[in-house]
């Protein structure tokens, strides 16, 4: 049986990731000028919730960091601290460090080193002398409760629990005077929940309701507030517990908490007074422990639905955790977390189903049944169903690129600070969904490229000013779906690629002959050569000659391609084109010199049968074809793949007109088109490494293995020979 504690802990860390994501979002909003209280609250609540959860697991370093960060955000929230651009930068930095702390707690790795300096800078913004802050920290380290995790769990040894919590809280008698303002009701809050939560803090409490000058019904303003409650609490409860209950309504009520020695008089044990709650009551209790949010007044109109899971009765109400309402998990009640392994198993099974279906189709077709027979009709329905299942399964694996892009935000901040440049990251299309595996494997190449853009792509501030550009450089990271693939672009508004310098470096390094005459595109592509670097000075970020070649091979291993567009003075765009999934693709099954292979359908624009008039010779070895007013280079797949030599005549041959992301077209000669079908991708990388022109393999209906071609890569590595001659020109 799995360890329940480990599961809860894992679930906490998943929740942390969501909270960190909403934290980044809110900080981005603040950076874009948002100064409304809700945005600031989101930041505060995210940090607060992480702290609360961390406390439950005894993650002291995380708690300590989050606590001090939260204290600063609380100052902002209460309007005591103005938010300057410098402050926002620090908030971002602190959020990055918070994320490091979360990971360090999760992976039990050393805590980030520069936490203290960041916190001190933050606290300096508040005007706090650090030594005083440290002293306060000692005292206030107990002023929170863990978020909804007040479970009866053994947290191991005593030291592993919440520091000093048990030591500092003593039995006390506190009197809470609570007077709601009309705004409290207007914002959808209900005192009943608050009082219930308050009285649940301790077993012994008593309450008095005072109707303040309550007029008779005729003169009553039903929306005004006429009640003050006086609640006396005795037991293990301190003021911060109480304030936490009122955390979200403190601005819309009058709250007074006084300590008293006079604890005489009968105390009620509320739990005993209330009989076994009905199902709807339980739901209400759950509602009470959820934060009473000022953001969801509409929700208060609805009767509380019964099917809320019954809560464990002793859940501490103060454990509501400020940020929970902002966490996606709290909003999206209709989601479920599934172990990735299970999804992978499902994907594999669906892959097998597709292969099996293809085999079945093959058998049926070999049986020579009439097309309108029941078996054929049934098979067609089965194929459509398989396709639907496959699409649905793939959608489960698809995830938005947003978390990945958010990580890049941090890379930009760190990289720009390291090289002393002002850089703003603009993000577009972050909801674009891509297969989870693709996203995971994209992080490293993207990090390299972002760093490169900051370091090489953008000019120094003085050069930018001299060029009439704003001092702050802009890097735009975008994602979009384009013709069955996802295209991720990293665009900078820098100086563009210095092509003469690139060429010179390449010649110096012996990568190209000294007299080479290269096109702009070819010069740009030199950047991807191993060992190439144009940086005169090696910086901490780049210029060591490793990077872009590694980036390209990583992208290629994902079945993707990378291209460069650059304009001097305007900037550079790196485009990464990736398959949406690494599991299946729609392909055209073709025959080349007796070999069956698959060409991805997404790369095929059209197919054509060549006539003599279409084919034009270009040089001694190459042909182009004339299609729709354009000349397109002709590649003979049989010859390029080494299955046979070139043909003497291509008249009557079938050509697949393919397009690359950069718009380049090429015509691939095949011997026959067999069918169009969905194929399951079986990677070859692990066994054979990268094979030029081959993306992967698949298993066909008859059990044969067929190679899946990568037309763009194939063309890049092709000779282009479609004619025989004694000498050769570069293809």
């Amino acid at each position, binding site marked *: 049986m799995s360890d329940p504690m480990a599961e809860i802990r894992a679930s906490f860390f998943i929740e942390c990731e969501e909270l960190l994501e909403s934290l980044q979002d809110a900080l981005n909003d603040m950076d874009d000028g948002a100064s409304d209280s809700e945005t600031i609250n989101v930041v505060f609540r995210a940090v607060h919730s992480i702290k609360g959860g961390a406390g439950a697991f005894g993650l002291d370093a995380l708690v300590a960091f989050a606590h001090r960060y939260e204290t600063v955000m609380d100052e902002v929230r209460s309007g005591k601290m103005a938010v300057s651009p410098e402050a926002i930068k620090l908030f971002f930095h602190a959020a990055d460090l918070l994320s490091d702390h979360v990971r360090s707690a999760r992976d039990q790795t050393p805590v980030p080193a520069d936490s203290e300096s960041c916190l001190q800078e933050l606290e300096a913004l508040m005007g706090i002398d650090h030594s005083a802050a440290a002293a306060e920290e000692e005292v206030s380290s107990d002023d929170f409760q863990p978020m909804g995790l007040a479970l009866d769990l053994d947290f191991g040894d005593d030291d592993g629990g919440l520091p000093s919590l048990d030591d500092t809280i003593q039995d006390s008698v506190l009197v809470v005077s609570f007077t709601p303002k009309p705004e409290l009701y207007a914002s959808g809050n209900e*005192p009943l929940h608050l009082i*219930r939560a308050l009285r649940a803090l301790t077993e012994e409490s008593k309450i008095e309701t005072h*109707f303040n000058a309550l007029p008779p019904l005729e003169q*009553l303003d039903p929306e005004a507030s006429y009640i003050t*409650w006086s609640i006396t609490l005795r037991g293990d409860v301190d003021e911060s517990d109480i304030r936490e209950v009122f955390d979200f309504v403190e601005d819309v009520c009058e709250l007074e908490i006084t300590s008293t020695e006079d604890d005489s008089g009968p105390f009620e044990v509320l739990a005993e007074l209330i009989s076994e709650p009905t199902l*709807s009551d339980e739901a209400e209790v759950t509602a009470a422990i959820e934060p009473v949010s000022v953001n969801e007044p509409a929700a208060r109109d609805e009767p509380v639905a019964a099917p809320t899971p019954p809560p464990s009765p002793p859940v501490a109400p103060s454990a509501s955790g400020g940020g929970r309402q902002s966490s996606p998990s709290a909003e999206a009640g209709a989601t479920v977390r599934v172990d990735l392994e299970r999804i992978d198993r499902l994907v594999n099974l669906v892959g097998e189903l597709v292969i099996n279906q293809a085999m079945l189709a093959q058998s049926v077709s070999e049986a020579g049944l009439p097309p309108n027979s029941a078996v054929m009709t049934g098979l067609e329905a089965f194929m459509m169903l398989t396709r639907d299942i496959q699409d649905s399964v793939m959608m489960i694996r698809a995830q938005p690129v947003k978390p990945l892009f958010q990580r890049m935000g941090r890379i930009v901040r760190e990289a720009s600070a390291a090289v002393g440049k002002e850089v703003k990251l603009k993000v577009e299309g972050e909801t674009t969904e891509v297969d989870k595996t693709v996203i995971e494997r994209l992080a490293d190449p993207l990090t390299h490229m972002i760093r490169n853009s900051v370091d090489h792509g953008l000019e120094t501030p003085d050069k930018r000013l001299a060029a009439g550009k704003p001092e702050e450089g802009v890097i735009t990271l975008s994602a979009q779906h384009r013709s069955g693939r996802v295209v991720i672009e990293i665009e900078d508004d820098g100086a563009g690629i210095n092509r003469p310098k690139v060429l010179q470096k390449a010649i110096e390094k012996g990568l190209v002959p000294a007299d080479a005459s290269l096109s702009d595109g070819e010069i740009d592509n030199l950047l991807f050569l191993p060992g190439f670097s144009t940086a005169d000075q090696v910086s901490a970020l780049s210029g060591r000659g490793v990077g872009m070649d590694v980036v390209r091979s990583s992208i290629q291993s994902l079945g993707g391609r990378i291209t460069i567009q650059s304009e001097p003075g305007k900037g550079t765009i790196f485009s990464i084109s990736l398959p949406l999934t690494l599991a299946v693709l729609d392909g055209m099954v073709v025959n080349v010199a007796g070999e069956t292979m698959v060409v991805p359908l997404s790369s095929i624009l059209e197919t054509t049968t060549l006539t003599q008039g279409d084919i034009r010779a270009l040089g001694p070895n190459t042909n182009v074809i004339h299609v729709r007013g354009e000349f397109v280079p002709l590649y003979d797949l049989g010859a390029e793949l080494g299955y046979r030599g070139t043909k003497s005549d291509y008249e009557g041959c079938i050509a697949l007109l393919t397009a690359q992301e950069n718009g380049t077209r090429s015509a691939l000669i095949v011997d026959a088109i067999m069918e169009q079908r969905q194929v399951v991708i079986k990677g070859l990388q692990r066994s054979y490494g990268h094979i030029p022109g081959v993306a992967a393999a698949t298993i066909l209906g008859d059990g044969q293995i067929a190679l899946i071609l990568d037309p763009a890569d194939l063309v890049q590595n092709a000779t282009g020979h479609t004619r025989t001659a004694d000498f050769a020109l570069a293809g």
Partner: protein
Amino acid sequence: MTSLPLDPKVDLSKVTTLAATLKSHAGADLVIDASEVTQVGALCLQTLAAAAQSWRASGHSLTISPRSEAFDESLLVFGLDLDDLQSTEAA
């Protein structure tokens, strides 16, 4: 005697209607049926208390019956006695 059903949940959006409905029954004995109530919020509470005050002043009875468990439980949480919301004056 008129029996007035109370909504399952009276909040800001419904309390004005409740007050108006109660006013329209002023000057006569009234029974409020709270059997469907899932929660007595503070606004509902003060309206009922104000009504009880008026009914007492006019010498009419105001009774809350039958009551759901949730109704009674809400009163317990608020620390109120049922009599705070009723008028036992006979007409």
